[in-house]
């Protein structure tokens, strides 16, 4: 069997793809790769299909052993990966020989790294996806959690044979892809979260809207794949508050919904969110900014800026087009 063995994992590692498209009506979150940019890039570097399952590693600290020859790509947070003790580049495809050891360290910045393998990872599919959600692991719908000692099964084509001129040319094309990718997608220190406003936003006074957008919010340590909790300094009077009358009925929520509970500290819903929620929603952060947000750590700062629906759609369309010529 073609496989990778996890020799040691002290961080968090899961199998991810683009998530479960048709699952929310049953109360399941869509799940899926937190940072689709790095996830898609990893498949892109290998000429894989976009949705092939890959490993999502949070905060590095994993050691893998190749049980066969295979071609992989590492993207996302830079974990100073070492192949048999020698530093290898991030955002690049590389070849592993049988018995090779790949070690990922704690990244200096960013959260999630992705390791894709040529032809993808073999694992249990659930609701048309191989994505694992932390909350549901114990329900046993998907495969087991990946920990020290786990075996990650690979497909037969994990080491494409390069022997014809055409293969060589194809490999060369893939190798040039690395220069289109990388850190430029992510923003520096202060990430601006562009959001599509909802009715509640327009009901706020212009002062309240200005206050909400000029303020810097700090990502709280209580943030994860479900939601990012933000906090701002200052007294509660200085925050934007929503006066709610009576209990609100729960409404389906989006990837990126900006909830504003009564304490005035916004919550941005992420991939493993609940499917419906009752807190007032100011708007929805556009998805390309959510991929950027998913790489931010507690303590880092963000700001909000309203954006039109059309702008957000155009951004997302061109984002996916970037990866559409893979194969």
């Amino acid at each position, binding site marked *: 069997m073609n496989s990778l063995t996890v020799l040691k994992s002290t961080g968090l590692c899961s199998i991810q793809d683009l998530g479960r498209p048709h699952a929310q009506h049953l109360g399941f979150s869509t799940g899926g790769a937190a940072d689709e940019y790095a996830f898609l890039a990893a498949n892109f570097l290998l000429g894989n299909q976009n949705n092939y399952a890959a490993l999502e590693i949070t905060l590095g600290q994993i050691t893998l052993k190749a049980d066969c020859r295979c071609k992989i790509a590492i993207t996302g947070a830079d974990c100073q990966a070492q192949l048999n003790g020698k530093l290898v580049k991030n955002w690049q495809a590389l070849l592993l020989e049988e018995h090779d050891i790949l070690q990922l360290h704690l990244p200096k910045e960013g959260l999630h790294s992705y390791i894709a393998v040529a032809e993808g990872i073999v694992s249990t599919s659930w*609701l048309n996806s191989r994505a694992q959600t932390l909350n549901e692991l114990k329900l046993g719908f998907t495969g087991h959690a990946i920990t020290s000692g786990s075996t990650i099964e690979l497909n037969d084509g994990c080491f494409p044979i390069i022997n014809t001129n055409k293969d060589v040319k194809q490999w060369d094309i893939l190798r040039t892809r690395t220069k289109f990718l990388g850190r430029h997608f992510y923003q520096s220190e202060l990430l601006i979260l562009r959001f*599509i406003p909802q009715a509640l936003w327009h009901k706020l006074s212009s002062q309240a809207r200005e206050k909400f957008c000029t303020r810097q919010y700090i990502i709280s340590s209580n943030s994860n794949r479900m939601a990012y909790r933000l906090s701002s300094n200052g007294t509660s009077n200085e925050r934007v508050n929503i006066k709610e009358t009576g209990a609100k009925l*729960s409404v389906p929520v989006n990837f990126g919904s900006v909830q504003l509970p009564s304490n005035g500290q916004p919550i941005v819903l992420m991939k493993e969110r609940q499917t*419906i929620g009752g807190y007032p929603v100011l708007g929805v952060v556009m998805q390309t900014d959510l991929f950027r947000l998913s790489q931010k750590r507690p303590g880092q700062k963000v700001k909000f800026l309203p954006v039109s629906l059309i702008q957000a759609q155009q951004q997302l369309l061109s984002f996916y087009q970037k990866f559409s010529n893979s194969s």
Partner: protein
Amino acid sequence: MLNQSSLSNVTFIYTSENSLLLQWQDKICQIQHQQIINCQKEIERELSEYIVDTVASYHCVMIYYHFEKISVVQLEQAIKALFTIIERNIDRQLVTASELIIEIPVYYGEDSGWDLAQLAKNLSLSIDEIITLHSERLYRAFAFGFIPGFCYLATLDDKLQQPRLSSPRTIVPKGAVAIAEKQTAIYPDAGPGGWHIIGQTPLPLYDVVNANEDTSQDKNFLPVINIGQQVRFKPISYQTFCQLGGELSLVDSLADSQISPINE
């Protein structure tokens, strides 16, 4: 004919790049909810090539669509055209929920209903009165959410309405039948929760089946209760509970797990 409100009053909210929230009046109402479910089914069927998923709740339905295939303007036109057909076509309006009533056997007792005694005190009712008020009513399944298979049922008798626990439990047992505000629900799996537990059911709330007979690779999730269906709770004895395969979870018999940020 049902006394339905006009579909021209439905609000269109384009919440994200690929989602449209159709919102009706802010109320828990069986007739309005049936209209929402009917519209949801029509949209899924007639516009299937553009639709990814639809998620209904009490007074709204979220439509996830392929935004790269259809513009906001086209989608709105298509749905409004569909609404006109639905309103003109009495047959389509009369599509109602299945007559089938889903019966959930519940063992109500002070051992299974962890909050029953305290609730009786708070509500100035006897335990028997709480059981009667909860089990004599027919509920409607309004929404799924919180965790897989967790179905929001309404409307609870006014006499039973209580806010959620001020401090949610880190673990509520699988099969717990609970109430909060105007709603009742069954916890399909053990997990955190802040509703008042009044009993436990031995009935599993979902089944996992192979999507294709020839392969075990993809599986489907089949909930016992579906949105729009009617539900009734049937009181059973401890003996029947055990005969039906129930395993009673007593207070503190479950180890506390980590506090989860999600709660119901």
